[in-house]
């Protein structure tokens, strides 16, 4: 089945055909979501939301871009909206992260408490640094690192030039270097 046929069938409401799309892209959407939210349960909720949006707004897909690019655009928008909304409730977020970290520490029983604590602190610092990147740098960073996506595709998703994407990624790396320099040698 070609992509055009696939889309046409989904537009007719064929859920079996949509299941093919879910099967093909859910892992990638989940991985991108993890890059933005870092928590499995949240990433699963986001993945679900992305596919529900895709199904309900498939009529807006005109075929100007590839289906995968369109899916990624929806994924990125959904993740950014979620992250921005969540930031408004940062206290709840903080409590959630605390629980998440504590749970992870408890789960990794093969390390001693000091090692666990150091690693957990290091991971929290990296997570915070990624989350605090400016929006465009963060999108470019997540798509290139988590999805190993070529800059050309990232440019299509972000509706910008390849050069701009390269610049965003480069700036993200510099920002992270500065913010995380204190971790080296810990």
């Amino acid at each position, binding site marked *: 089945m070609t992509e055009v046929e696939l889309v046409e069938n989904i537009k007719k409401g064929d859920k079996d055909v949509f299941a093919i799309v879910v099967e093909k892209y859910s892992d990638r959407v989940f991985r991108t979501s993890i890059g933005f939210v870092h928590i499995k349960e949240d990433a699963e909720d986001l993945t679900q939301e992305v*596919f*529900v949006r895709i199904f309900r707004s498939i009529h807006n897909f005109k075929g100007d871009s590839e289906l995968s690019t369109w899916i990624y655009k929806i994924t990125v928008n959904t993740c950014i909206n979620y992250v921005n909304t969540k930031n408004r409730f940062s206290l709840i977020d903080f409590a959630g992260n605390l629980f998440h970290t504590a749970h992870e520490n408890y789960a990794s029983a093969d390390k001693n408490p000091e090692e666990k604590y150091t690693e957990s602190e290091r991971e929290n610092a990296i997570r915070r640094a990624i989350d605090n990147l400016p929006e465009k740098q963060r999108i470019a960073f997540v798509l290139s*690192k988590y999805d190993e996506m070529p800059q050309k595709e990232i440019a299509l998703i972000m509706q910008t030039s390849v050069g701009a994407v390269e610049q965003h990624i480069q700036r993200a790396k510099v920002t992270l270097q500065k913010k*995380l320099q204190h971790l*080296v040698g810990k």
Partner: protein
Amino acid sequence: MNVNELIDKFVEKEKNITASKKLNDRILNQLERKPVHSIKLWQSLAVAASISIVIFSGIKLGGLYSHSHDLTSVNINDSEIENLNFYNSTSYE
């Protein structure tokens, strides 16, 4: 280990997180459910207008009430009540 390696290690760890096997079924089940309609602007305006009408009517109705001006006064001045001891007095007999 330099910063880039730390970041790469962190990203690799997160990339190894896998979604639940039931996620795809969950997504397809979600499609069966009716979409929750978002509240439209006119609905919010209608609710706001109703509340305003109720408050305005309440104030208006409250303002309509005016108590009567022909007040009947009750004398409660103790000093004007007749002293009962006067009637009990033996000398009065």
